[in-house]
């Protein structure tokens, strides 16, 4: 061939930190381009807040403000459970349509493809949690600002862990969407009910309370209640962090391992 070779050998080497940043910014682009998708996925938590909340007020016989004080922190965790817990389906869709394969051929470290995606989850979690707090505010929900900030950080760590597990599930189920949703739904609802998010477990049978003690979601919910109420030194806060950090560590480890095996 007589044509000039157009390439100079400046080929990149994989660099996990830089690659993670690049994957993260790519994942954020659709969110920035179309922020209304964030509002759309708020529908489910809003339904619980608007339709389940009044029932709770009626049942407990407590004033609206106090009931919200108990209920809203759970709704914030629910955002993560429903939103972030389902995020693996985005990756599954990219695996099925082909763009995941393209990123696997790019010179990106495998871990960055998982970590960048997991970190991206923080953005919708924070935006949605703040929106829920602002919506509940006029109805008598009051919160400690410092507690809210720490609470958002806790949700972010919890979300990174749960998101990683959701991606790992997508990588494991490959093109079987039914399997992804089957496993996801099977896990999400027990986690939800056994966290005392919707109804206190104090009235439930003993075995439920036992199961709840090994449910990390339950610890995070209790920590969020203490934080938003301003009880920053409550031991529940510590346990919430332990649960969230443990979940994040396990999630990232499992997720990165699945991504390395992806082809």
């Amino acid at each position, binding site marked *: 061939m007589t*044509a000039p*070779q157009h390439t100079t050998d400046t080929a990149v080497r994989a660099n996990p930190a830089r690659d993670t940043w690049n994957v993260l910014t790519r994942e954020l682009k659709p969110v920035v381009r179309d922020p209304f998708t964030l509002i759309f996925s708020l529908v489910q938590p809003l339904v619980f807040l608007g339709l389940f909340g009044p029932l709770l007020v009626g049942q407990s016989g407590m004033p609206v403000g106090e009931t919200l004080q108990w209920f809203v922190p759970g709704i914030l965790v629910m955002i993560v459970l429903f939103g972030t817990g389902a995020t693996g389906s985005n990756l599954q869709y990219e695996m099925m*349509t082909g*763009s995941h394969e393209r990123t696997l*051929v790019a010179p990106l470290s495998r871990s960055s493809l998982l970590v960048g995606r997991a970190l991206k989850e923080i953005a919708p979690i924070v935006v949605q949690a703040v929106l829920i707090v602002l919506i509940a505010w006029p109805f008598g929900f009051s919160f400690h600002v410092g507690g809210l900030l720490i609470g958002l950080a806790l949700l972010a760590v919890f979300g990174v862990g749960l998101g990683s597990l959701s991606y790992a599930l997508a990588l494991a189920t490959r093109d079987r969407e039914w399997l992804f949703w089957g496993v996801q739904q099977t896990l999400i609802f027990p986690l939800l009910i056994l966290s005392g998010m919707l109804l206190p477990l104090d009235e439930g049978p003993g075995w439920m309370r036992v199961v709840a003690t090994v449910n990390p979601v339950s610890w995070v919910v209790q920590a969020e209640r203490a934080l938003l109420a301003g009880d920053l030194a409550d031991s529940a806060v510590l346990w919430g962090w332990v649960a969230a950090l443990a979940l994040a560590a396990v999630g990232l480890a499992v997720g990165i391992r699945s991504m390395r095996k992806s082809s």
Partner: protein
Amino acid sequence: MTNEPIIEAQGLTKRFSSKKKTVEAVTDLTFEVARGELVAFLGPNGAGKSTSLRMLTSLIPPTAGTARVVGFDILRRPADVRARIGYVGQLTSGSFAQRVRDELLSQGTFYGMPASRARTRADELIESLDLAPFATRSVQQLSGGQKRRLDIALGLMHAPPLLFLDEPSTGLDPQSRANLWQHILDLRAQHGTTVFLTTHYLEEADRYAERVMVMDRGRVIADDTATRLKANLAGDVITLGFATTADAARAVEIVQRLADRDVARSDATLTVTAPDGDALLPEAVRRLDAAGLRVDRATGVPPTLDDVFLALTGRTLREAGEGEPVEEDEDPDATASTAKQATTTGAQR
């Protein structure tokens, strides 16, 4: 510039095992590709073309054998291979949720391009691949041909010296296909890019590839230019029509001696398959005339690569493609077909 081959495959073999049985998708693949070549893997679905490409691009490790691509071992230095090749898979490279220009810019950062250079390069590709009217649309909104052009643009973002294309024109209408090929050929003319592609369209391999490697059941069974493959393995089909059956019967021997091939007769018509048909045909007519045998009708049909495939395997490409598909857990062709359905349903979401 070195004279080292840009691809050197040595005994590449891939076996997939599912529940009970093991399927060998690719067997002992050994070949070299020189810089600047345009090579096509031609074969039916399930022949092992995609699996070969996935090994060469470091997506899946070979079960046995080795390969050097752009100077690096695919097993020991996969990151170096990845940084220097472009790959356009069978499906859509762009994420459906992303905008066209955003995906190009992200791709640039993946290959370590500074933001300003990525922007310039993205705009160049948007221009040359006619993507300008859709640059701010999401990939989901593009037509099949537009998606494919974006795939090519993504594969070229970092100006790789070697571009792999897996079934680049499958699913495109003839006009989009011709258009896509024009882009690929222009690219080579401008940058000397080595292009390695798979196809099951024989016209495409025939028309555009300088070198065709015919693949069947995991093996390369022929490797040459399309012209030579056709001349050596298939030959032109010459048909001669006579006024009477008696004339045709007398002509058999003359034609047989001239062509040095078996001649078939059906009533007053003779058929012979031979190389260099365009020279043979007038000579046959002259000799038959000289023997007092008048040829009424004469046709010479040049062979296609399908005839080559038939000569090599005893099956036509179409029959082979409908035949035994490779069954295994990770059959990329099988995954691809389910994924194509997903793509269509997904687009309607």
